[in-house]
């Protein structure tokens, strides 16, 4: 920009004036909130109301899922999609989680409680994709899907689910899997270095082991007893409760075998060959559930339409649903508020969070609903790194956190502070009283730190707290960093990483303090207790109970049929965890949600479980 001498000040005045005018204009507009014109577009036909206007539900599901293959699915966004196109053995009531007949119209339990027989309904059918007429859903479809889940070559993340349910033979199966692990690793190492001779020796061995595994899979505790009876045998009767709570999980849905075989062929040894097609694509998907996928725009949305051949199609109230992939939560909130009929959404979505900054604005809104989830937010301590190997240091850090303040001022979502280790489960488990857990006690914390040899934080080595890049995690981490600094004199550095690096580091023990969140896979305390035994794969702290009791207690509590005794056992475990402090609990997750008043049938629940066919739209 060239400059004439002496005209300088005029230039800046002109610039300032134009900027000021525009800013004022924008503020004026923003604050008056002019009338929103209904943005109609295109040509409008005469606005005649037709008798049956199709109902359309639009909501967000979270970030674009990695996959919507029902067996391989892992993320909650993907599960939202899967739970609507496939029908598992049972559905659940949103409020009480009592099982409702789904693909199974009834089920019986044997007297010893170890055998469950599911009677599949005769009119359940497969429809969609290339099918010209509907095919019946049979028990072998379930068997094949569950075997596919257990097959390591499918690479399903939830492979251990059948073991959680206690299906007969799974303990042995997973023990076998573990046994061949060193062999597999040797083969992998040989392949990496290109050692052809070693590969030639090891490969057939590994193939034999996999073949043996396949044989084992055939003999596990689930089978088809005729086309309409699916029988499950358990290892012990107490697991029956977990079975009934898990069997409605979308991962355990049946899969249409001919379509799967066509799209993902396997060779004689069961190795996956290059994919021919993706069986979940709209043009191939054959499903047994209330909805079919008609459109999938990557990173935008899924369109689901009512499956006309679903056995209960008459009772499915919503004709069409648009499931939106969310990249910007504030953007979703804007759409929720929008008065434009074409852009607005009807339900924010079970997996779409409201940023903490804005929760206060929405709390008093009639659309606001909140569910207390069955999940915890906590920080792992790596007990193999000094100074965190000292239990006094860990306990000191845990007592110095003001959880109420975090929940009230930072996360603001009505989360429940967690002082023990396990969240409450209505009607099943009450945790230890809050005073017995990690209360906010700076005096005690300072005592403990002094006992560990760092009075007032003097001499405390540098410690880094890691979290994955996210505004919410950053806020909590900053608050905790400040609390430790103020109450203990301990300086902790914060480091954020992208998800992939973060999880790799946490899994490999490359951290000192790391943020963690755990959503219960099923509504039973074992899903949390299973993290802490010394041989658990999830024990990121690499901690073991000094008194050696914990591992045994966890096992006993799982097999205990008497609920009162189980409660006592789990409380004992909690007290051990508070004494040993491998992790620092912060709060129990809640999920604020926004649901428009004309959406009926929505009940807040601990699992974010809201299948579309249980909802209705009544304007």
């Amino acid at each position: 920009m060239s400059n004439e001498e002496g005209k300088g000040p005029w230039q800046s005045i002109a610039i300032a004036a134009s900027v000021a005018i525009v800013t004022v204009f924008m503020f004026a507009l923003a604050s008056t909130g002019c009338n929103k014109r209904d943005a109609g577009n295109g040509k409008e036909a005469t606005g005649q109301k037709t008798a049956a206007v199709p109902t359309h539900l639009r909501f967000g599901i979270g970030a674009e899922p990695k996959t919507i293959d029902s067996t391989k699915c892992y993320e909650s966004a993907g599960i939202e999609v899967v739970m609507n196109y496939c029908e598992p053995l049972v559905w659940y009531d949103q409020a009480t989680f009592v099982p409702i007949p789904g693909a199974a119209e009834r089920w019986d339990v044997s007297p010893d409680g170890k055998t469950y027989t599911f009677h599949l309904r005769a009119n359940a059918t497969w429809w969609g994709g290339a099918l010209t007429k509907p095919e019946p859903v049979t028990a072998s479809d379930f068997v094949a899907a569950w075997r596919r889940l257990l097959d390591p070559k499918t690479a399903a993340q939830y492979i251990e689910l059948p073991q959680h349910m206690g299906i007969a033979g799974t303990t042995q199966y997973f023990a076998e899997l573990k046994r061949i692990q060193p062999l597999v690793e040797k083969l992998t190492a040989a392949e990496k270095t290109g050692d052809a001779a070693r590969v030639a020796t090891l490969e057939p061995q590994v193939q034999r082991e996999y073949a043996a595994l396949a044989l084992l899979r055939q003999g596990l505790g689930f089978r088809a007893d005729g086309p309409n009876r699916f029988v499950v045998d358990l290892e012990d009767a107490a697991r029956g409760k977990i079975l009934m709570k898990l069997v409605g999980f979308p991962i355990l849905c049946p899969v249409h075998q001919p379509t799967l075989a066509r799209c993902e062929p396997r060779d004689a040894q069961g190795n996956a060959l290059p994919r021919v097609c993706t069986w979940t694509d709209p043009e191939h998907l054959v499903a047994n559930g209330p909805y079919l996928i008609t459109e999938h725009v990557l990173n935008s949305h899924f369109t689901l339409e009512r499956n006309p051949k679903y056995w209960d199609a008459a009772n499915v109230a919503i004709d069409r649903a648009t499931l939106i992939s969310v990249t910007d939560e504030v953007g979703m909130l804007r759409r929720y508020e929008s008065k434009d009929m074409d852009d607005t959404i009807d339900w924010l979505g079970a997996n779409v969070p409201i940023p903490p900054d804005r929760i206060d604005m929405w709390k008093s809104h009639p659309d606001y609903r909140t569910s207390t989830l069955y999940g915890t937010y906590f920080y792992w301590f790596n007990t193999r790194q000094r100074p965190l190997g000292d239990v006094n240091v860990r306990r000191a850090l845990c007592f110095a956190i003001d959880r109420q303040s975090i929940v009230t001022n930072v996360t603001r979502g009505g989360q429940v502070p967690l002082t023990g280790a396990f969240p409450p489960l209505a009607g099943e488990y009450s945790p230890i009283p809050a005073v017995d857990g990690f209360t906010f006690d700076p005096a005690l914390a300072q005592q403990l730190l002094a006992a560990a040899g760092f009075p007032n934080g003097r001499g405390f080595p540098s410690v880094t707290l890691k979290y994955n890049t996210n505004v919410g995690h950053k806020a909590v981490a900053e608050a905790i960093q400040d609390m430790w600094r103020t109450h203990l004199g301990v300086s902790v550095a914060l480091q954020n990483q992208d998800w992939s690096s973060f999880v790799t580091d946490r899994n490999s023990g490359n951290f000192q303090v790391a943020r963690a969140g755990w959503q219960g896979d099923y509504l039973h305390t074992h899903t949390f207790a299973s993290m802490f035994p010394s041989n658990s794969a999830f024990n990121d702290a690499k901690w073991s109970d000094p008194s050696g009791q914990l591992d045994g207690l966890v096992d006993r509590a799982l097999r205990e049929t008497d609920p009162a005794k189980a409660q006592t056992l789990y409380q004992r475990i909690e007290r051990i965890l508070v004494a040993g402090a491998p992790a620092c609990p912060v709060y129990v997750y809640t999920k604020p949600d926004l649901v428009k008043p004309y959406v009926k049938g929505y009940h807040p629940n601990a699992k974010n479980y809201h299948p579309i066919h249980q909802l209705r739209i009544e304007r």
Partner: protein
Amino acid sequence: MHILSWLRRKCIMLAITLVVVTLATFAIMKAAPGNPYATDRKIEPAVERAIRKALCLDEPWHVQYWCYVKNMATGEIPSMRYEDKTPMSVIFPSLYDQRTGKQRILYWEDRTRYDGTKVRVLKILPDGGLFASFVVGCGALLFAIGVGVTAGVFAAKRRNSLIDHCLMGWAMIGITVPNFVIGPLLAYVVGTRLGWLPSSGWGELRHLVLPIITLGFAYAAYFGRFSRGGMLEVLNEDYVRTARAKGVPEWRITVWHELKLGLQPVVTFLGPAASGIVVGSIVVETVFQIPGIGRHLVESALARDYTLLMAMTVLLFTLLSVANMIVDLSYQLIDPRTRGKEATS
């Protein structure tokens, strides 16, 4: 003849640099820790082996490299971030509906709103992917050139008037305010508050307006400044004054004499502008929820999605090199003085 040999040389250069760039990207990606399938829970070693085998992760590095390059054509390995899609189908979505066989480039869609009114909506490239990014990017570039050059020429002609200062003031705002501020501001004011345009979404013409303005605003500012500067250079040249004295109409002077040479700095900036628009599309696609490929630039690196990253790098580099080649070519064509000489910059 000269042009053809120059073109041939450029293409060879492109091929060589493509190989070098993909090798370098691959090397850097492998050096970074982490893997594409990391999750909260530990994975069974057998499961992990299956995944790694399918993704070519345990081969020697040159085999891996070739595996991913080959995959761009064959699509055997799915993208690691989007397991149901191949990298090429992520970047180039299918342009016709596989179920019904209808095209999905430009078509009318009938919609019934909940109150019973029927509307016909014009959908444009609703499947997103490269096409969405391309449309928004080109639109932004055209907006930037159109608005920027017009403003710059206008300002140059009325040098040091109030209009000149106001326009250059706006240009300064465009250059200093980041697009991740302008985007949400427009989305909030025009979208949520005024309701004139949708605050986010994709698929119809009205979804194009705000993203194009957000993305193009900064570059309109740059083009405005440069064209004004370039125009000022030539405004007082002798040949222009001669033409005016000869009685050539004013608009002809502007277009034929002044613009051709005054726009040289604009043409020089086209390369960096295109590059900047590609980077800026990351922000715009996030703010306005557009299913384009901008996010893959960042996400595939963060998610260690080697297959998609390889495809994105090759695609991006080719596009930008071709764009730069076009710019160089037009440079030589526009200015006869540079024809026949090696470009000095």
